[in-house]
């Protein structure tokens, strides 16, 4: 693909991304406001504890955050503020939404990044090995464990890891410590159990996808020809098999990235007490903290759109025949 073609394609996709994101934000905004919830709902328990009239408390809270104004006015203010760089004030955490996200994105990002590296590297290597050594004992073992990896729910796995490695053996702290410097070995150690928890299911999936894709490619004529030409097996596997087999696995990895950002990371964050965006968004939904929910939806949409774009670009690197004109 020529450079100019790629640039035009990327620009077009970015423009679409902006429009789609704006649409998603608008729909989210309207749905949240029309939904049967109010930020005052969760106070009923406390109102009962303080034996207060809930109607008065709810009215006070809704008035304070401008939720008693007409919907069109709320939306107009929101969009106008967005263009001014003001993403709103989170009323469930009492801080600007952008500061909240700036403070917490790193916890989710490091967990997702390390889990993806852990699961992709190991998954692809094991899948490749398993395919090349098909029907050996190690292949059966890898297949067996990948089934277990896919089947085990990560919240259960996380708790079990804590009970064994933290409570019984004392190797790790039972929860993630936000006081640790991000770029430190101590932080890396603190992430070992969360990464295994989040990454095990994905790794098992990549193992199976890679194995199947490699087996498909091993049967191709081009591979037989390469072997017949006397090319070393490492070159045959590396250049002719893996390069073709990796494309569907990349698609799956990128798809996983979106789904992990939108939900998979939440349970791991809950189990290990990591205050990442998963927990922030989950709590914001339950608190009807509209500014946070809308902003995280916006960021999530951008992540999905940009990872899709990145996937398409990566395709051209792996397979130069792909064109986007």
């Amino acid at each position: 693909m020529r450079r100019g073609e790629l640039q035009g394609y990327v620009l077009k996709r970015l423009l679409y991304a902006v429009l789609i994101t704006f649409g998603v934000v608008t729909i989210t905004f309207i749905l949240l406001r029309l939904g049967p919830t109010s930020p005052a709902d969760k106070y009923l328990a406390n109102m009962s504890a303080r034996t207060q009239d809930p109607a008065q408390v709810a009215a006070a809270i809704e008035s304070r955050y401008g939720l008693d104004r007409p919907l069109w006015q709320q939306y107009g203010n929101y969009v106008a503020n967005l263009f001014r760089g003001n993403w709103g004030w989170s009323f469930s955490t009492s801080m600007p939404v952008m500061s909240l996200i700036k403070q917490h994105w790193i916890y989710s990002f490091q967990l997702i990044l390390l889990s993806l590296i852990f699961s992709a590297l190991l998954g692809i290597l094991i899948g490749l090995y398993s395919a090349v050594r098909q029907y050996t004992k190690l292949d059966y073992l890898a297949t067996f464990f990948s089934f277990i990896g896919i089947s085990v729910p990560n919240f259960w796995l996380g708790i079990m890891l804590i009970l064994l490695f933290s409570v019984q053996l004392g190797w790790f702290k039972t929860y993630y410590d936000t006081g640790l410097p991000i770029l430190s070995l101590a932080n890396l150690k603190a992430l070992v159990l969360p990464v295994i928890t989040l990454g095990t299911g994905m790794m098992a999936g990549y193992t199976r996808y890679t194995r199947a894709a490699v087996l498909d490619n091993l049967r191709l004529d081009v591979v037989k020809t390469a072997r017949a030409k006397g090319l070393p097996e490492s070159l045959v596997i590396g250049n002719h098999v893996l390069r073709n087999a990796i494309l569907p696995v990349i698609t799956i990895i990128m798809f996983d990235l979106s789904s992990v950002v939108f939900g998979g990371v939440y349970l791991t964050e809950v189990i290990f007490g990591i205050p990442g965006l998963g927990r922030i968004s989950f709590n914001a939904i339950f608190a009807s903290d509209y500014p946070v929910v809308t902003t995280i939806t916006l960021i999530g949409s951008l992540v999905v759109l940009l990872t899709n774009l990145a996937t398409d670009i990566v395709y051209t690197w792996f397979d130069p025949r792909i064109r986007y004109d």
Partner: protein
Amino acid sequence: MKFYVVFLIILVALVAGCTSPAPSSTLTTSSTPSPSAPSTSTAITATPQVSGDFIDGDSGGDAETLNWILAADAASFSYVGHTVDSLATYDNNWNVVLRHMARPVEISKDDLTYTITIRDDLEWSDGQKVTAGDYVYTLKNLMFSDWLNYPYRSDWQETVNGETVFVEPVVVNDTTFTIKRRTVDPEFADNAIYGLTPYPEHIVIKYEGDAQAFTQAPELNDLSFTGNLGPYRFQEWVRNDKFVAQRNPDFYLGQSGPDAGSPFFEHFEIKLFGTSTAMQAALEAGDITSAGIEPEDVAKFKSMPDIKVYTEPTSGYDIVVLNQRQNGWEGLRNKAVRQALAMSISKQEVINSVRLGFADPAFSFIPKPSPWYTDEGVSQFGFGSLYNKEEAKQILAGAGYEIKTVEGKPALQGRDGKPVKLTLVTTPGSSISENLAFLVKQELTDIGIEVEIKEVPWATLLRQYVMNKVPDQDQQPGYNNGPAAVSEQPWDLIIMAFNTNPVAPSGSRVFFTSDGGLNYWGYSNPAVDERFIEVSTAAAIDPEVRKKIYSELSRTIADDLPVIFLTFPRGNSGFRSNVAGIDPGMRLSWNYHKWYFAQP
């Protein structure tokens, strides 16, 4: 190969996790052997020393703000409470313990003027004295203002000639202010005054009138003004993770007397967990100092030498709410029927199988540790001899509801001749609520009532079942829109938990009076309404008179059963056993500034 090593480790972990973990004696940080029973502060002989960090695990929600006047949630008040004391608190026996007050509140002979004198050694962080003016400013210019919308302003309001008005705070001198009421309220000090904490007028005044600026003011959101007003100073708040406060060496109580040197922890941290399982694992591993313990895990933690478990009563109670409005089963509007239903649900079974032994039977709304509690003459439906399904069936028959046997099973017949089928609504996610729902269903099935359980999300429960309005009228749904109002969806029973302030139960009028703001089930008894008015009159200033009124209320409500009372649950708290100075009781943490780590 690495792959297999990793998976072998995981497999071992999975297998190990399935077995019950042994006490982690190798991980203990404790140096003090645990006594077989919880010790009181008097049993501790070691001298308190400032050392270590106290980490309190919490699996509830995070606070919403440190700018407490904006808060409506309990966690926010709890966080702020570590850095700013209130005027007074209570000990385990409900004695008033002075904090910012220099002496007890003085009440005028006509019971309308309250004189409050604060200590003269209270200071803001910039060294300025805390004055009576700060308290009055906080009340008049912030809590009573229209621009700030303080959620709990009704604590400071009274009804005069049908109009709702605020009480009148007035500065007398630097350390004294008065609050004038126009009507008598014997529990005004308990419900409002003792909990009051001040804002610094000289800092806040620049934000006055601008709710947005006040909400986002940095000084008010980082508690940097709190001076010597509390045992700790704010250090860090990571949302959804932890709140950390550091020892306040200038703490006004720590300067002399029995509190000298306190607090004794370098830091006090609240660590949030997503699940109670993870929190309890952290306590077991010694990563945190204290945590709530689930009933099913109490025995395990009690067997650990490095953990002490305190089981204390709480002020909450489980109930089955009975819809007495027009869209509920008409039988529920009949007292005899309500009594029959209550007689069929075993409170002991609820205690044993749902609360696993950690609860006391509830017959009315005042919990046992309250100074106003009585059980004299209080009907104990669903307990002892009044748990009697045969008698319940006879009462139902007497009320016009016959029980027929259909396909070998009893079936209660409604007045229309059709079998009675009730809808019980609860929310998912709480095993307690779910277990209660199934137990109630099982018990009522035995007297021929079919129960359909509906699990709905909290927001749906509020909007469709709890909130009500008069049909065909242009009215905003509310929690009690009068006797003609009904909810959007019909229902008969709801599993709920309520709370009573043990020292000032009159606030429960919102549940049990005809126009009570939270009386969404439509209960009405003029005698109860009258007693709740009476308990707020001058006559009730006399504790004996008030006790008599509360006794009458307890008896009437226990007999009338506006809701079916089930249990008063007990709470379980686990502490590392080297934490000393704890005074066990319902208000376990009232003296927490005096807790310390016992040294080896």
